[in-house]
């Protein structure tokens, strides 16, 4: 069912889902949504599977024409969603749209990536068990490429009821500076004590070379003991490698699966969604945690995320939420049935 025509894609927009796993041994990056938290919440707010395909946009969202009555939601980086120019919606709020509606997603003001989910999820071919676009491999998503405008996107049929909007105070925060927990290694022994101290005590900045593959940082030099080459090995998600130029690179979802630079540390898994929202110019520092500390904090993260998913997944029973537009002002109205 054709639901959306992309009029303008925005600076960088691709179709993503949870990722393509099992093929890193063949050199295939997993790809997938950079901010897993907001991406999954978007789907759950629409009653979709958490892993349904959505659009991931960077800096600014696309401008769309709705081709068929449906519901959509924008999550992730802070931005405003306009429908037909005058109806303004928040992120994390389900929006019912009608055929012919014009939707424009404004520039992101906090974070850098947004997710546009549609009821049922986007219907693009399942390639090697995933709908994620992997640009370097030219596969997945919409014809293996980023959107350019003029694409017509289809969605799967869904009769699931919509979930609930996430109140603003519960939105994930993406404000820099970012303090990122890391587990040292696997090649921490390639760095001097001074190099390790610099890495853990100084502040770094995300450079303009930052994309879905990885973020090159600028800052003080992280010094190696000797050479900055290892026999190429596997690169885990969140690995922080330091080539001969002594500036760290954080490896993200479209990373090369193998590489020959020593990895001083690896970001803990609960940091990935925040890193996915970090942008050029943001300040970043690293904090070493033990595996035990990481597991404990991961448990907190899991509980937090579960709380959010349970909240948004509940159909609004006996409750109605809608938007009222009076004199160019927009009101979010909740009505609750009382016994």
């Amino acid at each position, binding site marked *: 069912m054709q639901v959306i025509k992309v009029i303008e894609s925005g600076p960088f927009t691709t179709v993503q889902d949870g990722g393509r*796993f*099992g*093929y*890193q*041994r*063949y*050199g*295939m990056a997993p790809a997938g949504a950079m901010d897993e938290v907001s991406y999954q919440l978007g789907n759950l707010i629409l009653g979709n599977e958490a892993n349904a395909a959505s659009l991931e946009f960077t800096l600014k969202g696309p401008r769309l024409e709705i081709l068929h009555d449906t519901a959509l939601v924008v999550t992730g980086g802070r931005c405003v969603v306009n429908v037909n120019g005058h109806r303004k919606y928040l992120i994390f709020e389900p929006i019912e749209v009608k055929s012919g509606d014009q939707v424009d997603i404004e520039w992101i003001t906090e974070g850098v990536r947004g997710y546009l989910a549609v009821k049922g999820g986007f219907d693009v071919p399942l*390639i*090697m068990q995933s709908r994620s676009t*992997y640009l*370097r*491999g*030219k*596969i997945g998503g919409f014809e293996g490429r980023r959107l350019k405008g003029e694409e017509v996107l289809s969605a799967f049929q869904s009769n699931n009821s919509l979930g609930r909007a996430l109140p603003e105070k519960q939105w994930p925060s993406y404000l820099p500076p970012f303090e990122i927990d890391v*587990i040292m*290694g*696997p090649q921490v022994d390639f760095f001097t004590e001074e190099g390790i101290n610099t890495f853990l005590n100084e502040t770094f900045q995300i450079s303009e070379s930052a994309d879905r593959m990885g973020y090159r940082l600028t800052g003080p030099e992280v010094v190696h003991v000797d050479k900055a080459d290892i*026999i*190429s*090995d*596997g*690169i*885990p*998600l*969140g*690995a922080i490698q330091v080539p001969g130029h002594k500036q760290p690179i954080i490896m993200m979802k479209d990373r*090369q*699966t*193998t*590489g020959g630079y020593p*990895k001083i540390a*690896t*970001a*803990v*898994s609960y940091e990935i969604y925040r890193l996915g929202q970090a942008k050029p110019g943001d300040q970043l520092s690293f904090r070493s945690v033990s*595996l035990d500390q*990481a*597991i404990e904090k*991961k448990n907190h993260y899991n509980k937090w995320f579960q709380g959010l998913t349970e909240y948004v997944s509940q159909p609004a029973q006996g409750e109605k939420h809608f938007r009222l537009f009076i004199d160019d002002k927009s009101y979010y109205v909740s009505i609750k049935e009382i016994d």
Partner: protein
Amino acid sequence: MAEINVVPAGDQALALEFENRIDPEINSKVRAADYYLTKESKLKGLLETVPTYRSLLVYYDPDVWDYEELKEVLLNVEEHLKDVAIPNPETLEIPVLYGGEYGPDIDYVAEYNNLTIEEVIDIHHSSTYLIYMLGFVPGFPYLGGMSSKIATPRLENPRTQIPAGSVGIAGSQTGIYPLESPGGWRLIGRTPLKLFDPSKEDPFLPKPGHYLKFYPISEDEFESYLQA
């Protein structure tokens, strides 16, 4: 007991490392450990493995595995392997149309090494190459075993567009471009086979730890492969 080491790679992966050398014997240990974990052990909670020259990256589910427990299993992997019959590596045969428009640098490779073009082709296709690992782009094999007689430095100015299937030489290595991409390899031929075809159930022809051999084909054979 051979040198073997396990190090954490974040909170949901670890690296099993063998001796720090590029050596077919060490790579065969990686392959054996990988075979044990992915095919033989039936261990739950192992999500994905990435075999490379001398190490195996193992992604695991931290809800199933405690790092120390999994480390223990891996440190004893050679024990576990004693009773396991590991199938012999297979040899992937890759047809190549050498020279001409498909291998525009073969003249240079011949000249650089004081060989004739026929000698370059003979040397290149008579070796059996070990696929140490795949990486760089999907389906790209890191091959070991090229004769030093045809070693040639990379182009000074890389080409912006190299067609998929191009076979090239860079220094003492040979390789195949699975996708159209930029690159500085000296191109000596092209294979009509797709190393990476996402529409296939088994999308990748080269497999880590197995072997690869080239064989020369004619232009007519090349065309008929493309039409097949």
